[in-house]
């Protein structure tokens, strides 16, 4: 049915068109009236903050989510995919943010996944030599140095990312007779190291000669480098269409947040200069978790915001969970507020004044079926909200919940509304209120503004500053570079579970994105899948040069 759409007078040179794409989740508009055109042989980029709707847009383009309204065309033919398989058959291929390769099968099986029928003889028997030959053609075409017969898991993360990109870009061309693929790349380079990045850009050039690419990345310099057209998404709407020539990173950022990134978006002027005597409130010693991160020492002083940065595979989230005692570390100790060094345990730490905001809000942070009040009182059932006999203090619960609904401007009108009905920003405020009502001494925040709209983001940043002013020690783990730079007093950079640098970030001399990214990426190329030595040396925190 998909090819039976009305043949419109196809605008010559346009490979893909979308108009009026709209999507709501519950009461929240995610995309509103998004329309754009992708010319043949061009790279079109989408930039925007987290929660701006980029992922939803890609989900619609790749058939994973159906839009509430709107139309799409490929080569002038109506395109309305019911699922990802149909999108692939129509020539839309996607590289996902999270890898979707199966680790314990050979590379060639991953490359040809879903295409097995082409290699079946007598119905069921697969012609393996033919599969291997086809896979090798794809790898050669992509210019990768990979043995397709090896187990996929033998290659490291970066190499696997290249394999996945090669599959998305080339499998359709080689096997399915798709002449002009539309390739969706969702944050493809965040996990690539330098050498594979070059291969990636060569691949982009190659695909562009045959089809078109749609590209999402947070790395704005990269976007400016590879794109022919840049669209800016903000709060679910396209707010700008830009040509890379004559556009600067600052311009892009201005459109993304709706204003120039003023220095005080992160309230940098309010950043505290710590007194040397400020006591250490959180002290981790030789904390390690097998398979996630190697022994790390860490100290956060009262009123200080320490940022932790790194790529997806850096182990920074695991470090946060270990410090808070949510997933206890394999070895090492944490001392809270001058207490004894001991194995961290979230139950004990909560009693002693620690709060932990997880990155996965819906899975770990919030009970969607419970009311806002229940979610706020969640961590304080043992002290604030029940008496010595275990009787629940309902009046106090309601009063405190209503207090935070007002003071944090949680737009749910009332404390008894189901948390699922709130927007991401308001949900996150409820999670924060859970800890605020305990007047914590230490907060571990893992991506506190993920999936939060720009307005609520700013409120959360202000709140974080308020807490630091009150002397709360804050460990901030975040994927958002600008947030990391803007909020932190100093930044610890992790690379594959190893601490590689510590960068001071005083309000007067913040490091740049480029400097931090350089520290996060492994610098040297490595032999086939074997992790090489990281070149970036730990930086002396007292050395001011790096902090520009």
């Amino acid at each position, binding site marked *: 049915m998909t090819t039976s759409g009305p043949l419109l007078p196809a605008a010559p040179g346009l490979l893909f068109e979308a108009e009026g794409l709209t999507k709501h989740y519950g009461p929240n508009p995610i995309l509103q009236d998004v329309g754009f055109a992708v010319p043949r042989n061009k790279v079109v980029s989408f930039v925007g903050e987290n929660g701006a709707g980029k992922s939803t847009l890609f989900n619609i383009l790749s058939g994973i989510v159906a839009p509430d309204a709107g139309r799409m065309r490929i080569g002038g033919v109506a395109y309305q995919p019911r699922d990802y398989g149909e999108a692939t058959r129509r020539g839309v291929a996607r590289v996902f943010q999270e890898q979707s390769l199966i680790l314990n099968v050979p590379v060639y099986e991953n490359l040809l996944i879903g295409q097995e029928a082409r290699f079946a003889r007598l119905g069921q028997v697969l012609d393996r030599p033919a599969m291997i030959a086809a896979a090798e053609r794809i790898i050669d075409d992509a210019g990768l140095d990979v043995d397709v017969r090896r187990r996929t898991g033998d290659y490291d993360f970066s190499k696997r990312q290249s394999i996945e990109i090669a599959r998305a870009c080339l499998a359709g061309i080689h096997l399915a007779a798709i002449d002009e693929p539309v390739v969706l790349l969702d944050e493809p380079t965040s996990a690539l190291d330098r050498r594979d990045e070059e291969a990636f850009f060569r691949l982009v050039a190659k695909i562009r000669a045959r089809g078109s690419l749609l590209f999402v990345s947070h790395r704005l310099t990269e976007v400016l480098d590879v794109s022919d057209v840049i669209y800016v998404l903000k709060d679910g709407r396209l707010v700008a269409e830009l040509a890379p020539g004559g556009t600067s990173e600052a311009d892009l950022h201005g459109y993304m947040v709706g204003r120039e990134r003023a220095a005080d978006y992160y309230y940098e002027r309010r950043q505290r200069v710590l007194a040397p005597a400020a006591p250490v409130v959180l002290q981790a010693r030789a904390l390690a978790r097998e398979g996630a991160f190697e022994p790390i020492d860490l100290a956060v002083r009262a009123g200080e915001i320490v940022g932790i940065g790194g790529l997806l595979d850096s182990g920074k989230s695991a470090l946060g969970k270990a410090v808070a005692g949510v997933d206890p570390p394999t070895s090492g100790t944490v001392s809270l507020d001058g207490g004894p060094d001991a194995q961290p345990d979230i139950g004990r730490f909560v009693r002693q004044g620690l709060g932990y905001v997880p990155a996965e809000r819906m899975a770990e942070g919030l*009970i969607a*079926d419970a*009311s806002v009040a229940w979610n706020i009182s969640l961590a304080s059932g043992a002290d604030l909200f029940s008496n010595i006999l275990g009787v629940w203090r309902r009046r106090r619960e*309601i009063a405190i919940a209503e207090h935070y609904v007002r003071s944090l401007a949680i737009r749910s009108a009332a404390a008894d509304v*189901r948390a699922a009905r709130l927007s991401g920003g308001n949900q996150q405020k409820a999670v924060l209120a859970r800890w605020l009502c305990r007047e914590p001494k230490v907060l571990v925040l893992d991506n506190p503004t993920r999936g939060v709209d720009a307005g609520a983001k700013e409120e959360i940043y202000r709140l974080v500053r308020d807490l630091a002013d009150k002397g709360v020690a804050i460990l901030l783990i975040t994927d958002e570079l600008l947030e990391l730079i803007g909020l932190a007093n100093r930044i610890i950079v992790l690379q594959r579970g190893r601490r590689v640098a510590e960068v001071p970030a005083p309000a007067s001399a913040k490091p740049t994105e480029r400097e931090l990214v350089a520290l996060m990426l492994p610098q040297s190329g490595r032999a086939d899948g074997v992790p090489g030595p990281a070149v970036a040396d730990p930086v002396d925190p007292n050395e001011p040069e790096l902090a520009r």
Partner: protein
Amino acid sequence: MSVEADTLSPPARHPLRLPRLDKSLWLPIAVVAVLIAFFSATTDSFATLRNFTAISGQAGALLIVCLGGTFVILMGSIDLSVGAIVLFVAAASVKLLNLTGVGGGVLFVAAGIGLLLGLFNGVIYAYGRIPSFVATLGTLSIFSGLALQILEGRAIQFDLPGFEEIAIGQLVPRLPNIALCALVAWALAVLIATRTRFGRYMYLIGGGETVARTAGIPVRRYKIYAFALSGLLTGIGAILMVARLGAAGPSIGQELLLNSLAAIVVGGTSLAGGVGGPHRTLIGVLIIAILDNGLNLLGVTQYSQMIVKGVVVIAAVLVSRERILGAIVK
């Protein structure tokens, strides 16, 4: 009874309870009304005071056992061993009654044994990290095997004259003591669910175990508490059943597993956890007890009754699932 009034009209008194739950309470109540109307119309003996007394006697033990099970299911787990705990407690208490001079003190012994068996379940489940379904399926077999050894496969009568009065006596006219005990236990369970930390934690663990653990709630400990409470109430239910029947036999508690799960689910406590509560279980128990009694009066065979009950359970789950899906889609 003030507690009853409170739980049946929650919107005004419970600003934190979700309105969706309250509306859904009307469906099981309507089912009770329809069943009563149906059996009153089709049989002569159903709508008599005598029969209502009989129903309340039958429903009493079931309600007590179901209350503990409600907390376990609220928490997102399941206890399949309730019938086996009843069998074991019944066998052990009858033996104790006949061989020692515990007399009325056997009430406490039975409760204590139930508590220990529940603790055993809870520890295996929480510390062994075995799904509760599997853990209690195992203990179901263990407890039954031990109990049948104690009974040597036979029914044993107790010889303590007057002991049956704690179950079939009528402190309140027309209401057997076993039903009175059950109503008191129900009122306490409702208070525990709505007004205590334990109750709140059951809802939170059922609604989002990972969230609860990430916020520092001692999830494992509360899982054990829930199973211990279930065991305790089941033990009390068992000794009252023994008193009512005058003996403990190999078939005691046999129907309890299906009946208790049916009553809890039909009442509206979700098997997924986090939604429902003991106040609803009372209605579920009424539905099951009335169904049992009415079908018997109609002369429906035991085997056909099993079929009907199975259908009712599946229908109840289907209906509640529909409701949840509806809420999400909206």
